[in-house]
């Protein structure tokens, strides 16, 4: 028996010794392939600006189906050390020297005050893309949503659209194979795909050249124009969506207007949520005021799979807000809000912005009052600097900074942030996200196996 017990002790002892104390040093066997550093020249930096507002009926307003650009738009920008400033009558291709937004950026703006359009339309000039989500638009009576596709390259593009309405994806003829010829701007009235639809989101996919993609939304009540916006590309679907730049003003007056006239009901702020996936999305939206000056709200809702729904943002007083949506499925989001510009309302669509660790640049539109709405969707505090001046923003909060018109700024953060410019001219409002693009170039790491 002694030998048996001894063997047991031996085995248990050895087992424990091996399990607890035996540690082999890490031995490298073979080499992982290392990526090769390749020096490449970046693509010539270009930005495309959509130009002035598109109006139906030609210059005289009588040629239906013909969209022409009306008025002039002002471009403010920055290319390396030189400022860009221009007034344009049509789409504009800017060619720069710096490869990223930090050195080369531009924004365009136009306060339209004509028979067919009234309001501020401002948008960042963009380097172009092949994919875009646009969470905005209304095709009901008196409302017009136009898809603007600017192809400033020498290569044609073919575009496909997918519209997500309240009852799911909108089917119809002509949604694919749409031609966007080289060097031209193609304008598509979305009412031809989704007539009278009040609520929808658009997914644009193109093959061939990269396009500048915007959605121009316009409101005319009776014969009086009452709102205009140029909506840029939204962030990709995500379970967390950050929407900066919901700056509400003249809420009481607008509410009274809506009460008095049903045609002004769309001046109330709404949150638009699209669930492009195959499952229903249950979300919670936190509308959060900046600086503690305004209290927000919390909204919960469900969006059926493949559809878009609007949710009224109730009980919000004037203030600077941002929206954070947390969902169990990837969603897209955008907020429409209005202001009074004199006696007429104007509206803006604040789109969601991809949280990015920023090293970007932007220019505040000349002749406009511009504020930055900065949202930190992280739990932890984030430090960032604007033109060298450092700021910090607590976790899950937002901050507002005022910037000077016509001035270019650089912005850099140590963690991800979502930032938009809120632009105000004569009471008209527009929201344009800060873009952090960078042309691929310099030294790249490439591993061919």
């Amino acid at each position, binding site marked *: 028996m002694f030998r048996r017990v001894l063997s047991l002790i031996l085995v248990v002892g*050895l087992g424990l010794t091996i399990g607890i104390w035996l540690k082999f040093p890490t031995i490298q*066997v073979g080499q992982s392939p290392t990526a090769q550093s390749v020096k490449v020249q970046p693509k010539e930096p270009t930005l495309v600006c959509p130009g002035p507002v598109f109006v139906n009926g030609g210059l005289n307003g009588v040629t239906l189906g013909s969209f022409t650009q009306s008025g002039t738009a002002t471009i403010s920008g920055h290319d390396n050390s030189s400022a860009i400033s221009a007034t344009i009558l049509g789409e504009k291709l800017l060619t720069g020297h710096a490869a990223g937004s930090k050195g080369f950026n531009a924004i365009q703006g136009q306060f339209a005050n004509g028979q067919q359009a009234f309001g501020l339309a401002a948008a960042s000039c963009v380097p172009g893309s092949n994919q875009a989500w646009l969470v905005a638009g209304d095709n009901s009576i008196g409302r017009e949503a136009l898809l603007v596709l600017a192809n400033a390259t020498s290569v044609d593009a073919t575009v496909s659209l997918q519209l997500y309405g309240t009852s799911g994806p909108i089917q119809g003829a002509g949604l694919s194979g749409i031609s966007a010829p080289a060097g031209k701007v193609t304008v598509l009235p979305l009412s031809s795909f989704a007539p009278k639809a009040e609520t929808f989101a658009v997914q644009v996919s193109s093959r061939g050249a990269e396009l500048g993609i915007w959605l121009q939304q316009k409101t005319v009540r009776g014969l009086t124009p009452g709102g205009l916006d140029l909506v840029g590309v939204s962030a990709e679907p995500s379970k967390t969506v950050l929407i900066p730049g919901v700056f509400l003003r003249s809420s009481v007056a607008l509410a009274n207007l809506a009460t008095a006239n049903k045609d002004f009901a769309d001046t109330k702020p709404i949150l638009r949520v699209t669930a492009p996936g195959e499952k229903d999305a249950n979300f919670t939206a936190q509308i959060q005021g900046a600086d503690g000056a305004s209290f927000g709200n919390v909204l919960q809702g469900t969006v059926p799979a493949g559809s878009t729904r609007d949710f009224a943002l109730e009980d919000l007083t004037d203030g600077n807000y941002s929206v954070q949506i947390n969902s169990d499925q990837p969603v897209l989001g955008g907020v429409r809000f209005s202001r009074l510009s004199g006696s007429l309302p104007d509206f803006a669509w604040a789109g969601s912005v991809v949280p990015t660790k920023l090293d970007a640049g932007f220019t505040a539109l000349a002749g406009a009052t511009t504020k930055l709405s900065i949202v930190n969707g992280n739990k932890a505090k984030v430090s960032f600097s604007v033109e060298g001046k450092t700021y910090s923003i607590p976790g899950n909060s937002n901050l507002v900074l005022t910037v000077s018109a016509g001035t270019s700024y650089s912005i850099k953060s140590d963690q991800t942030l979502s930032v938009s410019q809120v632009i105000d001219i004569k009471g008209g409002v527009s929201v344009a996200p800060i873009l952090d693009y960078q042309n691929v170039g310099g030294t790249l*790491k490439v591993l061919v196996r």
Partner: protein
Amino acid sequence: MSTQVTALLVVHNEPASALRALQAIQEQTLKPTRIVILDSSETQTQLPIASQTISPKSKLGQIIQAGLSGLSSDPNHWLWLVHDDSAPAPTALSELVLATKNSETIAQVGALQLSTTRSREISQLGLTLSRFGEIINPVRGQRDQAQHDQVKDVLAVGTSSMLVRTDAYQLIGGIDDRAVALATDVDLSMRLRRHGFRVVVAPRAKVEHQGLTLAGKRGHKWLGGDTKTALRKATIQLRLVHDPLPLALLFWLALPLLTFYRMFWRLAQKRPSFLWAELRSGLWGFLTIFSRLASRSNAGKLPTKSLKPLRATRAEVSQHKRQALDAEESAQSLVAFERGDHEQEATEQPRNFSQSYGWLFMALLLAISWQQLPLQDAVSGGSATPLSNDWFAIFARAGASWQPIGQGFVAPSDPFNWVLLSISSLTFWAPNLSLVILLWLARGLAFASAWRMLSLLTAKAWQKNLGALLYSVLPVFTLAISAGDFATVVAGILTPWLVFAVARAAGLGRSGSARSDARTWSWVGLAGVLLAAVGAAAPALVALTLAGLGLVAFTKIRRFGYLFWIPLPLAAIYLPLALFQIGEPLALLAHPARSMALPDALPVWSSWVLGLIALVALAALLTKRWVVSLGIAGFALLAYVFELFVKSLQFPAGISGSTNALEAAVFLAVVALAIHFGSQLKSRLALAAMSTALVVGLTPLAYLAFTHPNQTQSSDGSVVPLLLQKQAEQGTDLQFLVINLQDDAYQVQWQPIGGLHLEDRNLAYSFSARSTTKDATYQALSQVVGNLVSANGLADARVLRENLIGYVLVPTSLQNAALVASLESSSLLESAGLTPFGELWRVVGLSASDVPQTPHSPWSITKVVQLGTLLGFALLAIPSRGRSRRPSDSVIFIDQSESELDV
């Protein structure tokens, strides 16, 4: 005129026998006319009568010619040739001479040869040939009961104590010394026959014959090889000399192929000891054709066909072989008994798998594996990559020395490809289906395998069932199945089988079966194939299994001759890779399956359950057979240490060690120990406690196996977009690039247009990162990719065309969005659309029709050797017909004690 007989005694190094033979000649009732002694011994033999000394190198024909010199050759003069290992009975010569009186055409008379050890056993009475030219000794082994006592015609007689007419002998040119030793007798008789003479046997002429030549006791030099070689050479000689010329030439031409076939046939017969003889004889026959043809010069005018009635019938051949086998088996059994290493059937006949309701448990395990139900053609994801849908492509990759990766890579393919080839061959029309079915059957097969192994330790069916169930639901096995890690699954299934087969070959375990040589070779064959498969599937297990095999060989040193051959197939398939990785030997421990980027996690409680089983296992050390338990526990600890060592190895990205298979081996030993403990228990209470503990462990593990989510997804087996697949099917050398942005680096995979399937995975390539990335072509391609992704319009189309890159694919992902946009704007590329694998572009100006496929032979010397070895062992592994004696036939074995493992 009276008959004259010259007795010719040929002496060669057997003085005592020669003296006895001379005495026998002198004691004949019919005295020979004269006695001539010819001595070719190394040292001259002292005999009462003067002998003529002949060179020891002289052959029999020369010796006889020397004896006949100066003597007349006429029909009344006969030569009686007596070998020094023969002792003719006193009436032998008179009976032989009497037989000659039957006919004037009789030219040769053979005697009835009796065994020297068993005096009434016939060792030869005439010789004949089978259909295939093998020499048949038709009445060998029979007891002489006067049943053959009639003079009768035969095809041939042995030269020992034959009486041959001297004129006929001289007419045919005597014994042909060009013929191999064992063919001379039959050749002489056949030539006499073909010259129109008769050859008969006189059974009353009895001769005791030691048969030293046939027994190989005169030395291999005399025979021209060992007995097996000599016999085969004799067959070849006779066919080349006596077959019609066209047939003989055809036989000669087919001889290499025939030799190859016969080698496999010998393996199928479980007679690997004949391999060398077959090879040597085949080469000899093929290379000495002119000498054989020269022997045809005086073969006789009558066609060999005329001798057909004297040839052995099929029944006679069959009976002859059966007798030979029986004799061999009896001899081996006796030798084994004398050695004392034979085994006995267990006194308590255990219930077999079916009687133990093994099928029921297998069915239960299949139900538990519901997530792996084979409802699809293939699986991908996790560690799984589909095989090619073309079986020939898998065959081409097994044992290949050239890999279709990048520019083409010269390196040995993974040994695991042989396992994949074997499995996929089961459903060769849809190779992936076998793998899908394997995942579903894995637990059931592991159960059956472990059940077999546990039968080495216990006879109780419920204990085997319980232990096998525990093994089949081990968490590590569950992980491998859910991840589609085919290599670990194969290793998990086969390891217990391997242990069982090695134990059988070594004669270890509760019941033995290695009573016959053929059966032992079967186990050796099976163990060899299994070791190769396990080693290929889990290379880290190789060192462990070889250590175990070494230990077994050490404890069963008498079985070393068998066990030595077990690693041969493993060596055959691993040697090329081992030589390739000679500078990085630890690379041989790399696992052949793709490692998962995020390994699947198991619940913590599964470790506690395994701890409980380990506790039960430890109790085995306190039982009576603690030495066996200590051995198993030691092996488990060794496996554990080795697992920790392999875990400490850091392989290149995407490669890991076979740690899961090692962990399975550790727990196989733990389960074996637990069951060994149970087999020692007598008390019902203790048995109940032990089984309760194991069932408590089994239940959560079965639940885990039932619920653990699959990491794999259904697939149609394609790995590239349909467009590329179809172009690959048409046959083209076009390649394509897969570009992915990962961790700020563009990862580019350079693949053949048909994509990389599971069989294309190559460890040698994975370990050759440094050499390939320094290659100028790879650097040029990197530059082109850099220019493409930056969309600067500077990408050099020439580099793409020169490297036959026809397509570029970018997998769909958020990170690749900018990459897609860049490639869209390139004028070198033309969009081919969005595919399930991502965005695809065609390189402008290069089409599949411009680049036809370069044929690559699927064969190489390496492959032939590997395939030959594997097939040989597979043939060896197939059990032969049950020819071994039943226990009741061999009473001498019944009282044998238990084997050494049962100490």
